């Protein structure tokens, strides 16, 4: 995309980071870029809390009898891991950090449509996280992140209400963010930026926002019903009070399956941007990739019953949910093929964002294909509730979304901070994460088929070898995630100055200063080109040039 006459910045030293100082200027900011950084800090804290719980679990599972904690504590650990990672890291990760930062920049706007609501959604998130952290500190919660009834509503005697309230509250943060993005993308695109000139990241954000706005209210009301039953003994889910124990699962998965796509669609958006920039090609089949995002958003609301094949639901209902689940796999497959085809006859560089993006494609492919085992009725009966499920969704969530999130953070870090990080370290961390991840989760596919149920604090001895392998992988993964934390923080002060467009990438966000000024652009840009117009861009600078040594073109 080229823009007409963007004037050079008034004073290149003034940007959104140093425009004003002090806590008030951050806590009362309505600048989408500062709010993105508030989210970045908050979700990073939550990621390491959730990660610590996972580390303790994997340490505990080195021996069949458990090495570390009592079963009650183990149950709280996997619950905390699930709740924190799903609701307080994965769901806000790409939308609230990268989406917040990039949606206005990519469409050439000064801010989101509702800047104050944007700040409000961060505060709501913090209040929700506060309730959840309180639940952890006040003794923990042991229902699993799924809060299945009647265990959660009647039998558990842990901090169910506080934790559920945390999830309930943070849901409103999602709804408001989704609403903000939808309005912004509809109403505030720069002149010339038609729908089919938008970068695919925006299509992904749009599809995600639709799911957030339509799905999240369902989980909210479900949580309220659990609280009603727990506090007031109104019979909704517990059959002893006249309720239906399965009703909860219908409501829960009606949100939580689409929520999987809240987590993974933004990742697909990031990967589209990174693949295009690092292979210097427009994404192959742009409109197929864009429409497949929308197709996923629609079909994802119709597949919730595949979580319930063994609950005793009608076998005919199972049949319908099975066929719809196969259907939702097709758009994802289309995306994978299109990304791969984009590389054909490209000019491919391997800086850290690209390594993460290629890692995403591989791991997401495996995660998606192992989903077929679970959409199949006959195999799901055996695999449901085992470690196979755990491995499958970690390939999607961690191998997919977290990889994409890391790709995005590394790709736009120079834009966010104005500095480059040491690429050697970043590549090393990317490889280490890839290796650690596979060693952690591949053995779990095997454990699952052998029959090891998930959420077991202790297990029969025949499962030990694979558990030890998984724990070994987890220790590598744990260390690998700490490395970026170190060099990214280091780079904020000592990194090389990036300049407005270190990757020579297309997109309006690269047409303004790094870091951008508070108003994003000196003048409203005008778009005259398709997205990913790499034919008219200079080549990707060499690694040496990016590191500040040597000729940019070799």
């Amino acid at each position, binding site marked *: 995309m080229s823009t007409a006459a963007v004037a050079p910045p008034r004073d290149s030293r003034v940007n959104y980071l140093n425009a004003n100082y002090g806590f008030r200027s951050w806590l009362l900011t309505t600048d989408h870029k500062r709010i993105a950084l508030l989210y970045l800090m908050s979700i990073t804290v939550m990621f390491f809390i959730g990660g610590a719980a996972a580390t303790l679990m994997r340490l505990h599972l080195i021996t069949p009898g458990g090495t570390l904690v009592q079963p009650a504590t183990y149950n709280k650990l996997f619950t905390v891991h699930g709740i924190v990672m799903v609701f307080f890291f994965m769901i806000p990760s790409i939308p609230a950090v990268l989406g917040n930062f990039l949606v206005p920049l990519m469409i050439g706007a000064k801010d989101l449509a509702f800047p104050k609501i944007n700040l409000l959604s961060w505060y709501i998130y913090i209040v929700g996280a506060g309730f959840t952290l309180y639940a952890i500190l006040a003794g923990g919660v042991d229902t699993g992140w799924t809060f299945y009834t009647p265990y959660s509503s009647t039998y558990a005697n842990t901090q169910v209400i506080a934790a559920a309230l945390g999830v309930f509250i943070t849901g409103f943060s999602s709804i408001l963010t989704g609403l903000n993005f939808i309005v912004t993308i509809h109403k505030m695109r720069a002149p010339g930026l038609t729908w089919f000139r938008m970068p695919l990241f925006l299509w992904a954000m749009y599809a995600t926002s639709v799911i957030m706005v339509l799905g999240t209210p369902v989980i909210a009301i479900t949580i309220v019903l659990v609280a009603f039953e727990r506090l007031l003994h109104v019979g909704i889910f517990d059959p002893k009070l006249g309720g239906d124990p399965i009703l909860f699962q219908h409501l829960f998965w009606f949100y939580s399956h689409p929520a999987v796509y809240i987590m993974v669609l933004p990742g697909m958006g990031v990967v589209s941007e990174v693949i295009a920039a690092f292979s210097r090609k427009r994404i192959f089949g742009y409109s197929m990739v864009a429409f497949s995002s929308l197709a996923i958003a629609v079909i994802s609301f119709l597949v919730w019953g595949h979580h319930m094949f063994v609950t005793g639901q009608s076998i005919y209902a199972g049949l319908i949910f099975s066929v719809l689940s196969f259907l939702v796999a097709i758009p994802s497959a289309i995306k994978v093929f299109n990304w791969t085809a984009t590389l054909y006859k490209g000019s491919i560089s391997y800086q850290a964002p690209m390594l993460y993006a290629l890692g995403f494609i591989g791991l997401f492919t495996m995660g998606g294909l192992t989903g077929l085992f679970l959409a199949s009725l006959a195999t799901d009966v*055996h695999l449901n509730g085992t470690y196979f499920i755990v491995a499958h969704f970690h390939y999607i969530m961690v191998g997919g979304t977290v990889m994409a999130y890391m790709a995005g953070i590394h790709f736009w870090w120079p834009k966010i901070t104005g500095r480059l990080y040491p690429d050697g370290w970043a590549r090393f961390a990317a490889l280490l994460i890839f290796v650690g991840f596979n060693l952690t989760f591949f053995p779990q596919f095997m454990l699952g088929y052998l029959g090891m149920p998930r959420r077991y604090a202790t297990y029969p001895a025949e499962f030990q070898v694979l558990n030890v392998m998984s724990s070994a992988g987890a220790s590598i993964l744990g260390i690998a995630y700490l490395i970026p934390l170190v060099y990214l923080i280091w780079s904020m002060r000592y990194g090389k100055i990036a300049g407005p467009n270190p990757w020579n990438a297309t997109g309006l966000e690269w047409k303004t200063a790094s870091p951008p000024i508070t108003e994003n652009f000196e003048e409203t840009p005008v778009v005259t080109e398709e997205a990913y117009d790499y034919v008219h861009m200079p080549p990707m600078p060499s690694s040496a040039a990016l590191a500040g040594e040597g000729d940019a073109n070799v």
Partner: protein
Amino acid sequence: MLKVLTLPILAALDWPGIPLRPEPGSTIAEGVDKLHFFLTGITFIFTVTIFSTILYFAIKYRRREGNLKPAATKTIMWLEITWTVIPSAICALIFVWSSSLYFENSRAPNASMEIFVVGKQWMWHLQHPEGPREINELHVPLGVPVKLTMTSEDVIHDFYVPAFRIKKDVLPGRYTSIWFQATQTGKFHFFCAQYCGMEHAGMIGWVYVMTPGDYEVWLAGGAKGESMTQAGARLFTQYGCDTCHKPDETGKGPSLDGIFGKPQKLKDGRTLNVDETFIRQAITNPNSMPLENYAPVMPTFQGQLNEEQILDLMAYVKSLGALERKAK
């Protein structure tokens, strides 16, 4: 055809070392394994193809002198259509295969032997109609179809026997069932596969598959108490059920002789078949289903009877039907 192709894979799986599948212990295990390893093959082929294509492109089209400015991407519609149609066809094939297998596996043969399972935090109660009651152990004969009718005393549990490739949630307030026919003697793990609270991981037991002869011996040795029908008959008198449910229709309630399996008309116009769930609800919450032609005077027995006693009563009610049919 495809099912035949997977046979050599299955043979290769049972190598010593890390096993890739649990022992196939039931008639449905081999079928599930074939589908599973067919899917594994599909996963392997696609993953390797994608990985190696990426690797090939990544090396061939790496950034270097003379390859800094690639040409524009073209849209190739036939390619898009091809890679939409092929995965769709594969998915359709898997769907048909797996659904027909699932339908086959779901139907319990009519001649199945019945065993009743009650899950409670955190143990399994298993009852044989002839009397023996087991905790966290289940003895069954080889080669005989066994149907498990299951319910829970408290939260949702799940009965899972990996060697048999069967699993079903065990729900409070209703009955679910699964069946299997064991194909080899030995002992096999069963697990609770739905998180149910603190000692979830301790809700484990063993299925002992015995030759029919050994099973008879075991049954004779274990059946010291009353059978489920006898226990049900005792409870029927003890809780005064017999004062209203008289065999000759002279009581305030309907006669229960031969009632199991027959439709009953309700005051609200519905007609329901008398099955396990019907009887359970009639005992625990009779007001929710008043019968046509009868006054709604039956008290609830919710909280007075545990799930095992309700199962005993059910066995007794079913036996009333059987006696009548025999008399005819």
